[in-house]
Every structure is written in structure tokens, then in C-alpha cells.
């Protein structure tokens, strides 16, 4: 099997991520986070996973890089079963943007971004060049590189988080409510910027969010989860057009109503009831 020159993963023609019959329970089988979940994700796609708290969306995301170990079923990344790799080897190949940012408070911005390349044993020169490239990519001033994360604004911190996830040139980026802690303006700007990065680099992105509007605006494909299972899976346009599931229809209602109100304000100059 050929090896992808950039990601170090085996090249293959099938889906880049494949979950088959995955189950995960907590509290000794009392509570199910994932129930016999099977799903495939194609290379290059931007997938948003939405659902209420406890729907299993974060567990599903973490099962892909083994931050959560599943009870049964199988997960393949790049065609390879993930339990064939040491967990830390797998995680160095998959970018991860954490909920609540998760920067290392005792490391400078530069050191935070360089952490995975360091773990991979890249040379200092190459790492320094890569860090410069990344701060430009996520539009951070280079003057911030020697600062500690605590001295940065929330938006700047998450730009560092994104740069850190991309540092080792992963083919896949997993994001756990990446913009949830930011104010709406920063959030929408960062979301749009990340979508452009996704296009230009040719990433496969899986993003967990509880914000349906964000999912609709950024993703090519939306998976809706409930009780550890998929209750809907499709392009934003298709989901907006209507769905057999009551929960899904209800979740789509809110952004649609908001959009209609906004359009009405733009057309008539005043909100209608």
C-alpha cells in the first residue's frame, strides 16, 4: 500500500474515516454514549456533528483519535484500524482543536504551536519556519509568539489552538466546539477563516458544535445525533428542506425563523411579530 507523502498515512481510495458498529457506555453499561454507530467520512469533507448535550457527539469525535476508547465495533482512519497504532502515534497524525481551547499555560505561544512537531522530532529550523508559516496562516501577529497564552484574548488563543492542531500537517482535523467560548463576532469570523483554510489545505474536518447555525454555515454535511445514534445525516440544504424526524425538524426551525426575521428587517425596516 502506498504511503501518503504528506500525512504519512496509507493512501487508499475509500473513506478517510470509517466507524463500524461502534458502541461506548459509561458507568458500567448503565449509560450509552454511542450505540452501534456506523458512519463514513470522505476525504476533503467538512462535517459538522450536532446534537443536544449527552447525545454522544463528543464521544464520537474522541473515538476517532482514541481520546475515548470504544467498547465494541471498529474505527478506521485512512483505511487502517486505529488500534493497530500506539494512541500517541495516531494523535500526532490527527489535528485536534479543544473545547475551552486547552493551550498549555506554562508554554509560550511559539512552544504551544510547536508541541507536536517537537514530539515528532522535527529539527529546530524546520519547526521555526513552520511556526512562522502557521501564525501567518491563522492571521496572528508574530509579535505574540513569545507571549504566554494567558496574555492573549480568547480569539487569539483559539487561533493559536488552530495553529497547534495544524502544525504537524495532519490530513484530518477534529474540532470539539472550537468557537463556543468566543463572542459572536469573533466566532463567525474565525469560523469563516477556518473554512477557507480547510479548502486551501485540503483538510478533512469533523467539527462538533451545539450551534446549528454555525453548522449550516460552515459544513458540507451535517450529522445530527441523539442517544448515541445518528438521527439525520445530510447536506445543510437537504436538512433545511425538511426531515421525517421531529427532533431534526425542530432543530432546523430556529435558524430558519431567525433568517426569515432578518430578511424581513432588511426588506421592511421593522421586525414583524
Amino acid at each position, binding site marked *: 500500500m502506498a504511503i501518503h507523502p504528506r500525512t504519512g498515512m496509507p493512501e487508499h481510495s475509500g473513506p478517510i474515516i470509517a466507524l463500524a458498529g461502534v458502541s461506548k457506555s459509561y458507568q458500567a453499561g448503565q449509560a450509552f454514549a454511542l450505540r452501534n454507530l456506523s458512519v463514513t467520512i470522505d476525504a476533503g469533507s467538512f462535517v459538522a456533528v450536532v446534537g443536544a448535550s449527552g447525545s454522544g457527539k463528543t464521544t464520537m469525535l474522541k473515538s476517532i483519535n482514541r481520546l475515548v476508547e470504544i467498547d465494541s465495533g471498529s474505527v478506521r482512519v485512512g483505511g487502517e484500524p486505529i488500534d493497530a497504532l500506539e494512541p500517541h502515534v495516531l*494523535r500526532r497524525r490527527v489535528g485536534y482543536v479543544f473545547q475551552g481551547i486547552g*493551550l498549555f499555560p*506554562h508554554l509560550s505561544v511559539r512552544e504551544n504551536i510547536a508541541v507536536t512537531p517537537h514530539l515528532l522530532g522535527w529539527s529546530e529550523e524546520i519547526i521555526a519556519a513552520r511556526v512562522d508559516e502557521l501564525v501567518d496562516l491563522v492571521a496572528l501577529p508574530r509579535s505574540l509568539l513569545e507571549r504566554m497564552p494567558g496574555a492573549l484574548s480568547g480569539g487569539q488563543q483559539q487561533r493559536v489552538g488552530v495553529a497547534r492542531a495544524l502544525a504537524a500537517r495532519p490530513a484530518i482535523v477534529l474540532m470539539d466546539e472550537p468557537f463556543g467560548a468566543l463572542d459572536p463576532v469573533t466566532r463567525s469570523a474565525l469560523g469563516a477563516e477556518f473554512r477557507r483554510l480547510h479548502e486551501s489545505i485540503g483538510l478533512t474536518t469533523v467539527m462538533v458544535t451545539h450551534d446549528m447555525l454555525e453548522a449550516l454555515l460552515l459544513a458540507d454535511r451535517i450529522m445530527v445525533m441523539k442517544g448515541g445514534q445518528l438521527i439525520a445525516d445530510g447536506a445543510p440544504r437537504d436538512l433545511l428542506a425538511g426531515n421525517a424526524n421531529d427532533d431534526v425538524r425542530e432543530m432546523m426551525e430556529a435558524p430558519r425563523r431567525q433568517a426569515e426575521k432578518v430578511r424581513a428587517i432588511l426588506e421592511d425596516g421593522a421586525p414583524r411579530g
Partner: protein
Amino acid sequence: MDDRFRSALNLLPEYLGEHVMLSAASLALGLLVSAPLVILARNSKRLRWPVLAFVSVVQTVPSIALLALFYPLLLALSSLSQKVFGQGFAALGFLPSLLALTLYSMLPIVRNGVTGLLNLDPAVLEAARGVGMTPRQSLLRVELPLAMPVIMAGVRTAAVWVIGTATLSTPVGQTSLGNYIFSGLQIENWVAVLFGCVSAVVLALVVDQLLALVESGVATRRKGRVLLGVVLLGVGVIAAVSPTLGSTKTAYVIGAKSFSEQYILSALMARRVTEEGLSATRRVGLGSVIAFRALANNDIDAYVDYSGTVWANILGRTDMPSREQMLQELTRELRDKYGVTLLGALGFENAYALAMRRDKADELGIRTIADLAGHSAQLRLGADFEFLARPEWAALRDSYGLAFRERRQYQSTFMYRAVASGEVDVISAFSSDGRIAAYDLVVLEDPKQVILPYDAIVLLSPKRAADADLRRALEPLVGAISIERMREANQMVDRDEDKLTPAQAAAWLEEQAGLEPK
């Protein structure tokens, strides 16, 4: 400058050097032992409780008892190693102190280490896993640096505790700043006591501040500060320890228990050895039984003990032979059982006795212990820490039918104060004590001869049994010191005004005994 201050200052390089060496070694060993325990307790919930419980329990043992307990333990190990490998080791002094202080330092280090590592933000720990760190990388690169302020706070606490507690290593034969305190307390040299306390406090504060510098350097990631703190600590330890390391190992170690007479006699013996052109060093302030064990184990070479003490405490005998017979039997038994040489008796007795203020005794018409018995129900007894546990007390009590209204225990200095001030009426005095005359006490006669003879005897270690040089130095002391002279010498050291140091009193005693320096 005050004489007592000057003589304390002269001793500072030795005491401080030993103190710093002991504290630094204990803290270093404490860190070394604590580190794996911290990791163990962090990783395993099941082991966490026993580990933390162990270090906490160690802390509840009074530190002086912890120090004392290591001595018999090491002694047993030493004799075992002697049997198995043909090679024993010194069970007195540095080793027991090091082990006890190491144990003592572990609670703050382990507890803060475990607390620091377990209370980290779980989001940061997940991030460490998520970016691809192995558990070891996560520990070294993320968890330890983040927990470092809490860990360093524990190390600082441990350092202060160890430096303070190291003063208590004097009774197990380790020289430390505690020598000022223990000997000062015995001979009521308050300048020395204060000097010892202040030195220990200053040392603790300096070390604490240097560790604080390291800690703030770690927290603010200023490598310069960390380096400066570490270098200053290192230079300080080397500077303090170098005079100790540089000094040549002295040939003869003279021991002393922890009271004035012993300080004087050990100074006298050391003086005699030095006058023979040999070198001598002193291990003073030893516990009563520890002194004999130390001698038998060759940790010290010579010291003065008392026939009745050795008879009852070491040989465990309860019979009461005559003076001469006891000395003969001791000479034989100590040689056969321990290889210890009884060189001879100095010529005076330091026996247990009951003493009262003269006016009180006259008032009640008490001259003997038999007279005392009739009044004992109205009287209070003050005793030193050993007396009430000794067979003499049981024998006195039973043969004369003594039953005091109240019994109190004192450190001997305070015991004399107590009888002088009327806080107690009768005390367990020592017959050679200078304070008997000074406080105008009467020693009550023992018509039934219940109390054992307590001749002061010079004992030599097995290693020195055939040492002609040492014998030549010490043999002239045999039979040369009368009870009156000993009392007077003791009083010179114990009195409040115009005090002499034990060394000065020893010189006086030597002169009085007609032993001219060569």
C-alpha cells in the same frame, strides 16, 4: 565581647558545617525517596491512601523519639552485617539522624506533590494526550511543570522542618547546632542556647528564601532566577561543609551523656588524650543507654559511666552486691559480654539520693529516708525523667514504704529549681551534684542500704582494649577525683554567676588532681 558568646562563635564553623551537611543530605535523600512515592500515589488510587497515611504517621511520631528509634535499629543491622559480612558500620551519629530526618522531610514533599499533580486542569491533561504526548511526556512536559509551584512549596516546608529538627540529632551523637542548645540547657548557659536557636532560625530563613527564589524562577519561567537560587544554595552548602570535610579524622572519640558532670569529664579525658600528643573529638549529649551501646559498637572510644547504672540497665541485674564486688563483676562481665574494658573508678560516686531543703528537713526532723517515710503522704516528690522507672525507686518505695502526695518529673536543672522554690519538697538528687551545696540541700541517709553504689568508671571500647596510648592518657585519672572536687567542678559550671565552661572546669579538676600537663 561576652566570653560565652565568643566561645559559641568559635564552635560555629564545626556545628554549622555538620548541621548543613546533615540537613542537605536528608533533604536530598527525602526528595529522592519521595519522587517515586508521589508518582505511585498519583497513578494508583489504591496505593494513594497507604502512602499518604504512612508519611503522615511518621510525622506524628515525636521527632526526638524518631531519631532515638533509629539507633537500636541500626545497631541491630550493624551486628547482623557484622555476622554476615564481617563488617559492621557506625550506628551512631550521622546515619540515624539522616534516616530519621529523611522520613521527617517526606510528608510535605509527598503530600504537596500528590496534591499538585492531582489538581491539574483536566482540559490541559486531555490536551497533552490530544497533541500526541505519551503518559511520560505528559508528566515531564506538562504535569510536573504545572504542579511545580505546589511541589516547591512542599520542598520549602520540608527544608525548614529538617533544619529545625536537625537540632535534635545531638542526643544520638550527631554534631549539630543543637549542641549549643543541649549543652547550654545542661550547664545553664543561656547565651549558648540562644545562639543555637538563632543560628538554626537564620539558617532556615536563608534556605527558605533561596528556595523561594528558585520557586518564583520556576513559576515565571526565568531560568536566571532558578540558576541563581540553585547556585547560591550549592555554594552555601559547600562553604558550610568544607571546614568539616577538610578536618582530619580525629583518632579518639570521647563520649558524654547529657549532664554537666559528663561534659566536664569528657573534656577532661579529651584533654588528657591531647596532652599525650594524640587528637580527640567529643560526642556529647548522648542518651544514657545509647552511650554504652555506642561504646560497645566502637562508635565512641571512651566515656564515663556509673557502676550501678551499668549493673541495672545494661546487665539487667537486680541483686545488690557490695561496691568492690560490683566493680569486680562488672569488669569481668563487660569484658566477656561486650569486649568493653573497665579501666577503673575515678574515685567518687554519683549515686541516686533523696534530697530536701535543709530548713524543711529540720522543721520536720527528717535525717534519713526512714524518717521521711512517716511524712511522705504530705510531701511532693520531684524526679528526673529516669528515676521513677528505675529499680532504686521501687526498692526505696517498697523498703521504706514511701507514698508521696504527688510526683512530678523535671529536666534536672528545673528539678533543683523546683525544690529550691518549694514547688516540690523532695527530689531525686545525684550525690556528686554541685547544686546540693549551692541550694543548701541535705542528702537523706539510706540506713537500709537500698541504693546501689554508683562509682564513676572509665569504660573503653572493644577496639581500644589494648590501646597503650589511650590507657597511658586515661589511667592517671583512676582514683584521682574526690566527691568534693567533683561537686565543686560541677558547681562551677552550673552556677548562675561567674560560670566556667566544662573545659575550664576540666582544667581546674586536672590541676587539683595533681596531674600536671606534660
